[in-house]
């Protein structure tokens, strides 16, 4: 039950008088407020600062520390107050939660301190109100990232029992871990530089020999350059193969960008080796050599800055794309205009629209090479318009776009995060709230079980239910009595539906048929708690952190003396004497295990804790046994 409206429970109960004339059978007895406590002031002494509040205020949230009997552990007999050795500032917001029903996150608080306080007092952070929730989540995320960064620094520690492969991979990824790794790191870096320089110098004209004009060094010292190239490619190939061997997931490694760059860098060499000196293909082969420049990207393993740049570009791809698109539009427009303007003039360089593209681009970016110049007046006019608009089109949006990058990027991230958080958050709140919906059914089962166990002197399973809850349950029981129907949880309901669909013989289960005509005799039996669950798990998503029952093995029989408790739900023998069981014995089949509260968010049921079942069947001639399978 939503504890925020606990104050209205007396009203709801009083209003239940409206059902009385309509009901056809007597109501269950109301739970007694035995303590008969007047509403008293409680003093909470938190590290010296005294807070006072009504007891009923704290009782609103019975599954927190202050609302349950857990606070009795902190009771100080001499001073008649509850003493907590915690932060009084943080306690303010916690106490306000009880008073107003809304939990706020004070911005000046440290996030981890606040979290600890919440955990101590048993309050889940998801209840934080909308006004403060985003701030809370942001701070928490920052904290988490900082922790992760710290952890990453510790990752370099050598774990014991790392096999050779893992050591190698670690050496590749973090060169600082060992001397060998450092040596390897520098060697590869050196050879990348050598390779790049070689490629560059290859094309420089070297000096003329006796009978030939200038030729590039590459052709003059072919052998030397070839040897250099071979050496570099050897190193790179060995490096690539080693990385491939050491990678934890080879498939993923091969798909990564860096490995593709590696492959592209060394492939031209091998293709060149394979290819013969065929005149036709050598032309194409020459083009392949351009890919050798990709070796420079291998530096990004050595430079953090390059990696960040690449990541930034990748993430701002959509903005850049839009910039490109708008530029293209402008270029096409102006190129078309210039072409048609210059069409008339003779010996015009503007031979076609694509040819005018070059002019437009050069003009708009204010480069102005001067290789293409308009000659007609109209062309000059449009040319000047083009250059003016070029300034606008490029110089203005670029800073805006750059700043937009960061703003829109971060904003998008936050919106997506908020949406993702919202779903998870709502799900968690729904789970913790749905516990109340089934708390009643739980307590019915618990009450039933309690009685049964009392008979067999077993250990009492009952969790003490607060007075508030017992009153609320009594209210729900009155409603059940008025309408002559009972609350069940969803699984049972679906089972029942299935059963009704399958049922062909009315006589097979007198329970169901008896209830069909139960209008007159509404207090049909509860002896059959029809919960056949062949596939185990009771859905724990429906049930809150109360105990779970796995199976109840009940026989109807003479009812035990009707106790004046809230759990007199069972075994009212019908006046019409439909039950003819003799010698009923009631046995329980299961000892249930308590689940930890609020820590099983999307708990998928009780597949985890194995249940021990003590099944004792008692024979009886009664046909109304309901056997429930144990998990």
């Amino acid at each position, binding site marked *: 039950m*939503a504890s925020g409206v606990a104050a209205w429970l007396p009203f709801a109960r009083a209003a239940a008088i409206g059902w009385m*004339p309509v009901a*056809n059978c007597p109501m269950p007895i109301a739970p007694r407020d035995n303590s008969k406590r007047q509403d008293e002031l409680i003093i909470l002494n938190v590290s010296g600062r005294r807070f006072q509040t009504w007891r009923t205020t704290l009782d609103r949230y019975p599954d927190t520390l202050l609302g349950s009997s857990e606070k009795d552990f902190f009771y100080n007999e001499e001073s008649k107050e509850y003493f907590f050795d915690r932060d009084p500032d943080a306690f303010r917001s916690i106490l306000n939660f009880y008073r107003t029903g809304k939990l706020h996150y004070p911005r000046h608080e440290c996030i981890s301190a606040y979290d600890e306080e919440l955990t101590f007092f048993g309050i889940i952070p998801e209840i934080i109100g909308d006004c403060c929730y985003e701030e809370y989540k942001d701070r928490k995320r920052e904290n988490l990232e900082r922790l992760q960064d710290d952890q990453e620094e510790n990752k370099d520690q050598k774990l014991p029992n790392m096999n050779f492969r893992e050591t190698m991979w670690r050496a590749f990824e973090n060169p600082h871990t060992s001397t060998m790794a450092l040596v390897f790191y520098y060697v590869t870096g050196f050879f990348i530089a050598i390779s790049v320089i070689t490629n560059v110098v290859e094309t420089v004209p070297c000096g003329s020999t006796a009978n030939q004009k200038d030729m590039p060094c590459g052709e003059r010292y072919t052998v030397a350059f070839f040897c250099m190239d071979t050496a570099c490619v050897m190193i790179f190939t060995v490096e690539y193969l080693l990385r491939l061997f050491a990678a934890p997931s080879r498939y993923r490694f091969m798909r990564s960008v860096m490995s593709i760059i590696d492959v592209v860098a060394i492939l031209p060499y091998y293709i060149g080796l394979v290819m013969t000196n065929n005149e036709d293909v050598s032309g194409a082969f020459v083009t392949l050599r351009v890919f050798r420049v990709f070796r420079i990207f291998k530096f990004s393993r050595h430079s953090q800055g390059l990696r960040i740049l690449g990541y930034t570009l990748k993430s701002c791809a959509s903005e850049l794309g839009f910039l490109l698109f708008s530029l293209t539009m402008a270029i096409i427009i102006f190129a078309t205009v210039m072409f048609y303007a210059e069409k008339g003039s003779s010996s015009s360089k503007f031979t076609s629209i694509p040819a005018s593209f070059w002019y437009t681009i050069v003009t708009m970016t204010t480069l102005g090479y001067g290789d293409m110049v308009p000659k007609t007046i109209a062309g000059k006019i449009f040319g000047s318009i083009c250059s003016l608009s070029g300034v606008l089109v490029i110089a203005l949006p670029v800073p805006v776009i750059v700043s937009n990058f960061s703003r829109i990027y971060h904003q998008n991230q936050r919106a997506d995060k908020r949406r993702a958080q919202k779903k998870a958050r709502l799900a968690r709140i729904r789970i913790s709230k749905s516990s109340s919906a089934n708390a009643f059914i739980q307590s019915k089962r618990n009450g039933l079980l309690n009685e049964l166990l009392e008979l067999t002197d077993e250990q009492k399973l009952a969790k003490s239910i607060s007075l508030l809850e017992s009153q609320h349950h009594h209210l729900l029981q009155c409603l059940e009595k008025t309408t002559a129907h009972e609350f069940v949880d969803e699984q049972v309901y679906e089972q029942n539906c299935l059963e*009704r669909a399958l049922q062909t013989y009315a006589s097979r289960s007198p329970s169901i048929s008896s209830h069909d005509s139960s209008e*007159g005799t509404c207090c049909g039996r509860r002896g059959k708690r*029809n919960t056949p669950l062949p596939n185990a798990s009771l859905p724990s998503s429906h049930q809150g952190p109360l105990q779970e029952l796995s199976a109840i093995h009940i026989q109807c029989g003479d009812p035990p003396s009707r106790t004046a408790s809230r759990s007199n739900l069972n075994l009212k023998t019908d006046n019409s004497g439909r039950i003819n069981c003799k010698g009923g014995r009631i046995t329980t089949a299961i000892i249930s295990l308590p689940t930890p509260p609020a820590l099983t968010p999307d708990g998928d049921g009780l597949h985890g804790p194995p249940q021990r079942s003590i099944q004792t069947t008692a024979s009886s001639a009664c046909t109304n046994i309901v056997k429930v399978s144990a998990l």
Partner: protein
Amino acid sequence: MDAKRVETISARVDAAVSSPDSVEDELELSAVRHRPEGLEQLEAQTRFSRKELQILYRGFKNECPSGVVNEETFKDIYSQFFPQGDASTYAHFLFNAFDTDHNGSVSFEDFVMGLSILLRGTIQEKLNWAFNLYDINKDGYITKEEMLDIMKAIYDMMGKCTYPVLKEETPRQHVEVFFQKMDKNKDGVVTIDEFIDCCQNDENIMRSMHLFENVL
């Protein structure tokens, strides 16, 4: 008999048309800060002690800081006690029963008067209150349609997952049983006298009327 039925039906239609259900009302109510009469006056008018009134008011004011409850808030609060079903229809009827001056809001006085009857009143008063609740159009007669509405509202609170499964005609059957018991002269409506008479002769009802006396 038919004419009477037509009358009641048309009266109900009129009531439905004129029911205040607009945004302006809400705005008005939210701007209003209602202060209740003094403690002594309330003490005199109701059967609660001073302390009980204090407790009641604190709870009331906590949920409704403005001092009045409008129907939406009322429905929200009441629905939280019945998480499995839909309590809004019944809450609507309850609201009308509490809102004795029919101004669309329940102030603390209305609230406390109603509670005083329910918790501390005589059997006669309680039965009177229940009759008033069932008599939706407040014309002094409970017709089968009114009773059916109330019954459906009560069954709605149970929700879907019940045992045995709720069927379509269950409320109707329940209404039939009710009328069989209550409608002595079989004229199709239940008057206040028939109602009170019948309830007083029914042991179960008498006993359950005393059930909630120790609520506060």
